[in-house]
């Protein structure tokens, strides 16, 4: 079954009010093209789940700056002063999780489970008494699974059936989100015929991918960011 769609049609599947997971850790793995189309189409009241907020003027920061986002579930937004300002002004609800806990909450949803027992930050201010469970003589924090209606992911390579392979530090949250969301929209730099990715090298199996967008080219969003080049 071919899953290729135009970027307009793929993003049009997302209604206002949707919960959307978005891959990427910083720039690598961020599906900038899908995000930019979501900015263009203008859906609002979105809840986003992403490791970080990208940087001002880029990626999900555009959605937030544009007022399309109600809530952001994330781990760290230190590289984005604009989003911190919007948060501090009360115009964006931000929910922070430890990074690996966020990853694991997403994976737990992807595995069809409902939560997991953790000992991370048990006695920290981020843990509420109602999150604690005494079980078989020990106290755990129950971390509930994090589901979403949509996930937007970026892949280096895909086949038309929806198998995906990521490259380098662009793997990060992408395969986890692809497992977790009901509808997974993938953008890929290079889309080939089935068989173009050796079966052992598929990172996200076609079963998890709903719609596939072949990128005609990479915009400057995907390039080296001059202000991160240290001398």
């Amino acid at each position: 079954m071919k899953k290729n769609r135009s970027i307009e049609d793929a993003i049009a599947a997302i209604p206002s009010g949707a919960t959307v997971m978005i891959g990427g850790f910083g720039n690598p793995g961020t599906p900038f093209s899908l995000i930019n189309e979501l900015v263009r189409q203008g859906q609002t009241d979105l809840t986003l789940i992403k490791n970080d907020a990208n940087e001002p003027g880029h990626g999900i920061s555009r959605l937030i700056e544009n007022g399309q986002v109600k809530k952001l579930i994330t781990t760290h937004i230190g590289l984005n002063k604009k989003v911190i300002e919007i948060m501090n002004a009360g115009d964006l609800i931000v929910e922070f999780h430890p990074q690996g806990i966020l990853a694991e909450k997403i994976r737990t949803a992807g595995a069809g489970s409902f939560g997991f027992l953790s000992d991370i930050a048990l006695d920290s201010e981020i843990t509420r008494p109602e999150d604690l469970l005494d079980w078989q003589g020990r106290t755990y924090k129950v971390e509930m699974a994090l589901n979403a209606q949509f996930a937007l992911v970026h892949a280096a390579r895909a086949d038309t059936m929806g198998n995906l392979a990521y490259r380098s530090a662009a793997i990060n949250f992408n395969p986890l989100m692809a497992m977790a969301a009901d509808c997974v929209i993938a953008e890929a730099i290079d889309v080939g015929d089935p068989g173009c990715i050796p079966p052992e090298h598929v990172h996200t199996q076609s079963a998890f991918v709903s719609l596939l967008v072949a990128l005609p080219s990479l915009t400057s969003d995907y390039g080296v960011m001059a202000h991160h080049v240290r001398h």
Partner: protein
Amino acid sequence: MSATDRILNRAAQEVVAGSIVNLGIGLPTQVIHFLPDDFDVQIHSENGILGAWKQAQPEAMDPFLIDSAGAYVTTRPGSSFFDSAVSFAMIRRARLDLTMIGAFEVDASGNLANWKIPGKFSPGIGGAMELAQKTRRIVVLTTHTDKKGRSKILETCRLPLTAKRCVNRIISDLAVMDVTPDGLVVREILTDISDAELQELTEAKLTFTGAEAANDGQ
């Protein structure tokens, strides 16, 4: 040698051959430049790299290859890339031998505060809590005092904690101190300063048993 270089130079000696090490944002990421090019260590970066290495030359930068601090890095033969769940599985399953990490405050019980200054700075948690709680050995790299000259090495942290009783060693620009059941024990003094002067600059009570003054190294 600058105060920063003094910390980094000493920190590099903490890295044991054959180990897996995470270097936190800030000072710690710079430690890598104080290691020999062929040193046998695997640098773990939370964003999904084992085997990251020094920063890339501008002409060789790969926009898809950053470390968790956002720097364009290189990798060494035998490196691997993986997803964020695997990356933190390594951390929580205690496969990391050493994490070097920065601090706003660190105290005599080994408590660490480096993620939040209420009302001033709260950009999120990142990987700090899991790294601090689960790495086998935590070495804090920090200036001994803040910009206003106040000790960052306290009897008891006042800021919200990143993790409790997690720190094994503190390397400041002035001294190397170990967290022990008896509080902080000074192991080395890194600059031209007396025991009394060091204690004067430190809120936490220091024990000097076993401490030997070390030369700057320059």
